């Protein structure tokens, strides 16, 4: 609830309990003087400024005498019920005694009436009722405020929880979209139909063991893509195995045009990496260095471990990238996905960079924490 919705005075009345106390205190006590004017002064036909003045004076006295009660209740608020009740009772009795005495003495001096002390019991009884009401009303308001506060807190918590849930849903949507994109990327229709065509060729020319091998490679690759959730991690060894399945299929398709080189030291193999993270990099290399080059080329995957960081380089012999363009323009949607996924896993604690090699070709470097 925005505070600025109300006028500052209304707002203070709404929010500030001190202001609320004093407004109710003054309205209550001078309401009492109005009631006593109407019921006593008019009924008994008590004319004269003294009588009317006295109703105002006794209200003013009431304001002052009841004031310390607030501190008393504050003091005992969190104590046991028995202390609170007895302190309240003592307060009521004390205040009514003082108020009665002061009321009678001011009444006698202001109106000149005598022998009022004889009626002390009646005056005390009235006082006692007034202060009982005051205390009851005080607690009523106080508990109402507490209830209100609690209600607001609950509402705020509920809305916080809702915002939290919304955020979580958004994050899940982003992750799911990434997964869908990955799947669509994996099962690239061009790759799939060309591979099936190559298998068909092997069957046709009766090279059945090669055809069989290629069917297994394709199945393994598809299974890995479908089984592995992109929000999970796998060991680098598993990831390299999957990429190898893919590259072996491409080697069968492209023949001598595709040369492969791997250098994955043993100490890197058990390090966890996001699953399917290398796939788009390798697919890019195929697209630019092999499929677009009549003479074909080489794709090398080189890993190294240094100072708690794993570096994986995917190096190709293609035309490289135009440095005037960013990653996205020069390599398409694939690397932007990779960048987004790495950010989800490692925040800013990773590196994804593209460099043209001096001798020609592109090096895509992936650097991530090794633990």
């Amino acid at each position, binding site marked *: 609830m925005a505070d600025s919705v109300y006028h500052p005075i209304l707002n203070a009345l709404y929010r500030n309990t001190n202001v609320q106390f004093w407004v109710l205190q003054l309205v209550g006590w001078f309401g009492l003087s109005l009631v006593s004017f109407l019921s006593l002064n008019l009924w008994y036909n008590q004319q004269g400024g003294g009588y009317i003045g006295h109703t105002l004076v006794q209200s003013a006295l009431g304001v002052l005498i009841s004031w310390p009660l607030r501190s008393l209740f504050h003091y005992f608020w969190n104590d046991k019920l028995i202390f609170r009740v007895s302190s309240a009772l003592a307060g009521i009795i004390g205040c009514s005694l003082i108020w009665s005495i002061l009321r009678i003495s001011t009444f006698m001096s202001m109106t000149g009436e005598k022998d009022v002390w004889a009626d002390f019991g009646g005056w005390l009884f009235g006082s006692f009722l007034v202060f009982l009401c005051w205390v009851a009303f005080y607690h009523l308001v106080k508990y109402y405020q507490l209830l209100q506060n609690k209600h607001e807190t609950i509402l705020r918590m509920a809305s916080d929880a809702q915002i939290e849930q919304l955020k979580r849903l958004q994050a899940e949507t982003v992750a799911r979209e990434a997964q869908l994109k990955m799947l669509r990327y994996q099962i690239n*229709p*061009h790759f*799939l*139909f*060309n591979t*099936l*065509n*190559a*298998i*068909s*060729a*092997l069957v*046709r*020319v009766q090279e059945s063991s090669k055809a069989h091998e290629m069917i297994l490679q394709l199945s393994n690759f598809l299974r890995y893509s479908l089984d592995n959730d992109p929000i999970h991690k796998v060991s680098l060894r598993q990831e390299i195995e999957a990429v190898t399945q893919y590259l072996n299929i491409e080697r*069968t*398709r*492209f*023949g001598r*045009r595709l040369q492969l080189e791997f250098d994955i030291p043993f100490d890197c193999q058990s390090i966890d990496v996001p699953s399917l993270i290398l796939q788009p990099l390798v697919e890019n290399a195929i697209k630019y260095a092999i*499929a*677009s*080059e*009549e003479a074909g080329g080489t794709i090398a995957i080189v890993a190294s471990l240094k100072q708690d960081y794993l570096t994986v380089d995917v190096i190709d012999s293609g035309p490289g990238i135009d440095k005037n363009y960013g990653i996205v323009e020069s390599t398409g949607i694939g690397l932007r996905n990779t960048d987004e996924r790495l950010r989800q896993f490692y925040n800013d604690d990773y590196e994804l960079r593209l460099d043209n090699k001096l001798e020609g070709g592109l090096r895509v470097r992936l650097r991530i924490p090794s633990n």
Partner: protein
Amino acid sequence: MQKLRTIIVDDEPLALRLLRAVLNEIANVEIIAECNNGKQAVEATTKLQPELIFLDIQMPGMNGFDVIKSLQTDIMPMVVFVTAYDQFAVDAFDLHAVDYVLKPLDSERIARSIERAVDRLKNDVDHSFKSPLIGAIEEISERASQDKFSNVTDNNLPDGMKRKLLVRDSGVVKVIPFDDIDWVDAAGDYMCVHAVGETHVIRSTLRDLLSKLDSNLFVRIHRSTIVNMERVVSVTPLQMGGSLLHLTQGESLKVSRNYRDAIKKFFK
């Protein structure tokens, strides 16, 4: 029965083997060349002048569409495109009645393509095969570029610009000086302008373009082909009276018997 002289083109060795195996089982097909890339396909087609070509679209260097664009209209064989997956292309092919087969190859589908080619060879006396091909290719590249540029005409250009040709390539308008043009061929409503190793497709007629070009430089060598004579480096005579012109960019163009005299004039 006369066999269809056929060239097959694919950059993947296995795909080429499958195509060969399937076609070998069809009686009226004779494979006269196998090519691994677009450049070889253009050379083989110019040299051997086949009746039919099976042309893979996705290839390194020159892709299937580049091959079509750089082949002379007058020697354009019938074409069956081969593609793994390209919904855009397939729609455009259907629209322009261009034949295609999908990978993995289906031998029945290929047999139907052959029947269709035999029919066309018999009935289509014009043999104007390039026009629908260019129509389909243009449509594909327009959809791919997606940019909707308004049609550029050169009517209201300043004088300095009139010695140049405006072409639209993938949504970008390029200016080509007439002197840069190597050769031009017409394919139906389209003209393929070959300049400095690139081919640009424009909507125009041969007559319209000829009227703008310098007639001392540009000569008609075939029904649908104009060549910039300054680009000719050598001539090979062919049997039957025709000849081949070899250009600086490495292309070879066929000169028809009917236009022989126009060429002779230049070499006197």
